[in-house]
């Protein structure tokens, strides 16, 4: 199936100041997969994510999303297919009310009022946030904001959902709700995170990035059991796998 595909082929990227952030990244994610992306700080995870909807363009190599090759012309279309949820919800909830934020995407897709309202309703229902509809974002708690930020992205019904550190600012309860929620989504999911337990819970596959290149790519179960590999990348075994001896 060529749709819902994310493919990076030998992607290199250099920042204007000369930093080589990506050095030959290659992988292929197919329809319905859920993939975790892990690595040390500065390994290139964020830069990688920024390529997925064309905010950054590769210096060389190709990025293919569904059957579209990423170019300046195809960026807008690609943005309809890839929904990215960022680390800080305050940066994504920029409209005066929750409704406005969740409606922002569908309106930009050119939908009419009835359909926009339907999409907003459905998206908020999926994240259990219908009661927040008319509130301004700055009246929401961290967990509520995260949920609404996700709703704002899924209201566009993207094929591929990309998330950058989704649970970073959440308390344990909200984090658990998020994990449960993500497991119900049928989208292809790409999650970049340091929270290895979350990745273990949500993703079937795991890609490890080091110094701008892929150093491991396989089933999450295996990768996240490989203590040596993880420690080479400034990571640890997921807490659930560490044999913490209680005194």
């Amino acid at each position, binding site marked *: 199936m060529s749709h819902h595909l994310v493919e990076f082929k030998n992607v290199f990227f250099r920042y204007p100041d000369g930093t080589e952030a990506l050095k030959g990244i290659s992988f292929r994610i197919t329809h319905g997969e859920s993939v975790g992306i892990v690595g040390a700080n500065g390994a290139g995870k964020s830069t990688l994510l920024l390529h997925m*909807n064309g*905010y950054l363009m590769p210096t060389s190599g190709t990025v293919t999303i569904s059957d579209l090759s990423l170019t300046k012309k195809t960026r*807008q279309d690609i*943005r*309809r297919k890839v*929904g*990215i949820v*960022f680390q*800080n919800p*305050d*940066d*994504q909830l*920029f*409209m*005066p*009310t929750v409704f*406005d934020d969740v*409606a*922002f*995407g569908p*309106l*930009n*897709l050119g939908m009419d*009022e009835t359909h*926009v309202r339907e999409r907003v309703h459905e998206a908020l229902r999926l994240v259990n946030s219908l009661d927040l509809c008319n*509130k*301004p*974002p*700055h*009246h929401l708690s961290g967990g509520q904001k995260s949920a609404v930020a996700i709703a*704002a*992205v899924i209201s*566009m019904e993207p094929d591929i959902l990309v998330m950058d550190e989704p649970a970073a600012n959440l308390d344990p309860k909200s984090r658990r709700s998020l994990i449960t929620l993500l497991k119900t989504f049928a989208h292809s999911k790409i999650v970049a995170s340091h929270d290895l337990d979350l990745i273990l819970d949500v993703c079937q596959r795991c890609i490890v990035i080091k110094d701008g290149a892929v150093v491991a790519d396989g089933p999450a179960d295996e990768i996240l059991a490989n203590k040596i590999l993880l420690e080479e990348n400034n990571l640890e075994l997921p807490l659930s796998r560490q044999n913490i001896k209680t005194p």
Partner: protein
Amino acid sequence: MTFDEKYFNIGHLDRISYQDTCVHRLDPRVKVIATMLFLITVVSFPKYEVVALFPFFLFPVLLMTIGEIPILFIVKKVLLVSPFAVFIGIFNPFLDTRTAAVIAGIPVSAGWISFVAIMLKFSLTISAAILLIATTSFPGVCHALRQLGFPSLFTAQLLFLYRYLFVLMEESMRIIRARDMRSFGKRGTGVKVVVRLIGILFLRTVDRAERIYYAMLSRGFQGDILSLKQSHLRTSDLAFMAVTIALLTVFRFFRVTEQIGSFAQELLR
């Protein structure tokens, strides 16, 4: 006001503005126009008119009670900003000493009369402005402005300002606290330090703007911030408008207070 006071004060006003009462449910356009008409009417009274201003207090009182807005809150706010008006107005009694009237045997100078007029007008106009926000919510006012013809570029960035006002104030608060914890009295609060702090805040702000823009692009932004069709005016809105205009006209052009007073005097005789 200390920083915290200023911050929580507007946070409080902001929360009040999202309440749900029949005043809050009135169309924002109607409230904006009514407020402006109110202000022009009050301000159009001549310098020495005092007594005719009293009926106008009906508006703030009605808005506060029906809108369930804490009266003390409004009063405090009015008092807080009054120094400027007092400062300018207080010259009147000293400079305009012609006796204008004798009340209960005491001569009252024209200057005092105009001073009282200024203070009354001040209370009315300031409370009207605060009550507009208190009963409408800031985004409501912005949407009203856009529909009333203000440039959409202006209202769009006004909404962004509002959205990030609290976010940036919190950031600022954190920066100030960090400074205060290390400044031992006045040593760390010089201009040099402040400049650096503002500079840091500025850089963070620009970076934030970049991230926001990226988030907008990611959700399909192509230059115009679109919105759904706005609601229509309802009968209650039109009724409110009509009543307001009627009362303003009556209070402005008819000597209501004095008529009531004369009438009462007749009764007592």
